[in-house]
């Protein structure tokens, strides 16, 4: 019985090592699937306004901003509400749309829950609405 238990424990732990040995290029999903739930398109051509809304959304969600770059269109922050890190990038799609992509990780794990990203984009939509309708 003990042997069986030890073997099971070993197998369970081994499943964590099935990606690349160093984990550098390791990820849990396909690129297309990941990009799909981590991205959302917004109908505005104003990149700066979207970036500012991303920052205020992250503040609303309890993030402290670590880095931001207007030229690259990126914002990175650390959440003090649920101990996670997130990077958001904003890039134009044509002249009237912006593609916003977010990726987050908590501790040693990447956040792969589409619902978590949906929550973030819902919050961003509200912030974009507030920013566009003079609610301060």
């Amino acid at each position, binding site marked *: 019985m003990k042997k069986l238990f030890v073997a099971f424990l070993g197998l369970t732990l081994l499943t964590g090592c099935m990606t690349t040995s160093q984990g550098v290029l390791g990820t849990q999903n396909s690129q297309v699937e990941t990009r799909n739930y981590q991205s959302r398109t917004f109908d505005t051509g104003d990149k700066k306004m979207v970036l500012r809304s991303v920052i205020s959304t992250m503040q609303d969600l*309890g993030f402290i901003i670590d880095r931001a770059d207007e030229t690259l269109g990126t914002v990175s922050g650390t959440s003090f509400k649920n101990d996670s890190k997130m990077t958001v990038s904003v890039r134009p799609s044509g002249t009237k749309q912006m593609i916003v992509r977010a990726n987050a990780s908590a501790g040693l794990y990447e956040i792969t829950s589409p619902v978590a990203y949906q929550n973030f984009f819902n*919050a961003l939509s509200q912030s974009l609405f507030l920013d566009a309708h003079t609610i*301060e």
Partner: protein
Amino acid sequence: MKKFLAICACLIGLSGCVSYDNYYKLDGDYLNRRQMETMRFEADSEETILSASAGVLQDLGFTLDETETKLGLITAYKNREATSVGTRVALVLLSAIDDSEVVYDTEQKIFTTLVTTKSRESRGYNVRVSFARSVTNNKHETRNEQIKDNKTYREFFDKLSQSLFLTAHEI
């Protein structure tokens, strides 16, 4: 056998997934917090406000970490003691009396994000500042927390108001 199955089920559960479905949901209080963290100031330019804000953060002992003036952003941090020496001594003495193990905070890293935006309602700019801290105790355990104390934010904005006056008068 039942025990074995239960342990196996737990191990599978642990090796599997933590649910992140509740992450990044806005709580019911976020608009109040946004209001507490934001104040409008009269100024000729965003640069003036940012410069005065950087001055206040320096006055308060923060190290500026990242600035992106095109987005009106400043981030800064400082490391400080989390509990005064007097409090620590008192806690140690108290623990000696009832022979309990004493746990107290030893150090904290305080972070801040400050963002300026042009006010749409009137002349001037809105400044939004958020504070948070990582606190470590004498058992080397760290916890993160947002600072939601109204007084802290009011005091900061009072200081910024003074800083704007000083900056305007080149002091």
